[in-house]
């Protein structure tokens, strides 16, 4: 009896730790969510009825979820404690209005382009817990006017910036809702721009060390970029569209040429007096260094010096302005073929998915118990023979 009690005590102390993972037992992953309801939401005890507290708009929680709908979402609060919230409070059936405080009216229509191969979803709100209303295929171009910025200072309140946008509101073919564009699956439109690209990484390193390179190309983008700080651009290369971020710099459509009355001596390069040169990057006088190309040379060079000052740069004489395509050889811009249709969501499919998940669990439990029963019977029979 004492041994039995000791064992019971050990089991009670040890088993909770063992229950964490029994040899590959499934884990549940969590997702961080920000409360977006204007008035916040209540959170409850595990019975789903006793209110334990209130979450305000902007509060962050971790939602523990499975791939199935539930009456409640199980959450982890900022203090690490567990609670539940009603799924209707987070997974909203209602639409996230464009009049919400964090929504910016950009004043005019802008375009987005769905680059993600699998397409993206349109939801009633800017977060995945909002009900899905439609699916947009890869290659679709849509318009939007309202946007939510990512809340980390990327973007501006008046919608000036075209990047740092978390989600945009689209309305087309009777479908309206939000698309999350923060993860580079959806591109934002920009004016087609010119980029200097070194033809190899070594060339870029050579440029930095020697201050010049002839191994570069200038391309014009189709006008689509990712919506992130490391602005990847959509280009057509090797027979397909792809995103690239290894460009050296953007240059303006028109580039200004200058001459100087004196020699311009930099750390690595010198521009002789009277030589006409184009400034490609950095002609704003605030940063006393620039990237240039002597007219007719097809070699880009960097010019910087500790002796530089704004006064020197202001002494340059403007000669002429030229279009980039007149100075460099630019390949023809290839634009993708755009789709414009949206596939509306069949919510019956979602309900069927949820039923399937429940059925799977129930069937697995029934099978598990049946197998256990068969094993018990087998043990009895196997050892009954011995006893006989």
């Amino acid at each position, binding site marked *: 009896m004492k*041994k039995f009690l000791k064992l019971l005590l050990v089991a009670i102390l040890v088993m909770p730790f063992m*229950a964490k993972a*029994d040899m590959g037992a499934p884990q549940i*992953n969590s997702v961080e969510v920000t409360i977006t309801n204007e008035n916040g939401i209540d959170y409850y005890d595990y019975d789903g009825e006793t209110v334990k507290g209130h979450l305000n708009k902007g509060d962050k929680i971790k939602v523990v979820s499975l*791939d*199935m709908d539930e009456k409640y979402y199980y959450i982890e609060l900022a203090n690490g404690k567990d609670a539940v919230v009603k799924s209707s409070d987070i997974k909203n059936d209602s639409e996230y209005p464009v009049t919400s405080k964090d929504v910016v009216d950009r004043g005019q229509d802008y375009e987005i382009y769905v680059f993600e191969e699998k397409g993206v979803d349109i939801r009633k709100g800017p977060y995945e817990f909002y009900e899905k209303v439609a699916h947009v295929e890869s290659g679709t171009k849509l318009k939007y006017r309202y946007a939510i910025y990512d809340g980390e200072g990327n973007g501006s309140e008046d919608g000036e910036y075209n990047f740092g946008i978390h989600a945009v509101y689209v309305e087309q073919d009777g479908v309206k809702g939000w698309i999350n564009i923060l993860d580079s699956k959806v591109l934002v439109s920009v004016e087609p721009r010119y980029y200097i690209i070194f033809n190899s990484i070594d060339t870029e390193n050579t440029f930095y060390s020697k201050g010049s390179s002839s191994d570069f190309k200038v391309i014009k983008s189709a006008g689509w970029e990712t919506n992130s700080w490391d602005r990847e651009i959509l280009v057509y290369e090797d027979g397909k569209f792809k995103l690239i971020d290894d460009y050296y710099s953007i240059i303006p459509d028109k580039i200004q040429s200058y001459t100087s009355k004196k020699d311009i001596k930099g750390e690595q390069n010198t521009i002789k007096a009277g030589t006409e040169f184009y400034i490609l990057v950095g002609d704003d006088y605030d940063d006393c260094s620039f990237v240039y190309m002597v007219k007719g040379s097809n070699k880009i060079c960097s010019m910087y010096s500790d002796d530089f000052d704004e006064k020197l740069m202001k002494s340059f004489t403007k000669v002429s302005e030229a279009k980039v395509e007149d100075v460099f050889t630019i390949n023809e811009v290839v634009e993708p073929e755009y789709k414009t249709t949206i596939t509306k969501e069949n919510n019956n499919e979602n309900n069927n998915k949820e039923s399937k998940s429940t059925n*799977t669990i129930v069937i697995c439990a029934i099978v598990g118990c049946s197998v256990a029963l068969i094993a018990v019977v087998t*043990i009895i029979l196997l050892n009954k023979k011995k006893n006989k």
Partner: protein
Amino acid sequence: MKISDLPCVMIKCLICTILIEVIIAFILKVRNKKDLFNVILVNIVTNPVVVSLPFVFLITRGLRAYRISFIALEIITLFVEGFIYHKVLEYKKINPFILSLILNLGSYFIGEIINLL
């Protein structure tokens, strides 16, 4: 983990648990073939139930019920296995309940190591 993966996960758990517990039993000098077979059968009795039943609690009663049921089932498993070992094993060197504890602890820790790898 997706719910649709649950059947595969159950099979994987069962196979791994059986392998590890049989090896540990063998190390503990359980050499009788019938005893080893009984160890396999005992795990077939308990493992699928412990893995699948908590999910039923999860969908009907919630996360807290899931966690509690998991712990409770593990404790019950310890005693069920111990009881069965007591009744059927010819191996008597170690108390059957302690044997059950050792085998379950072993499969847990080795499982954790394998998961980490």
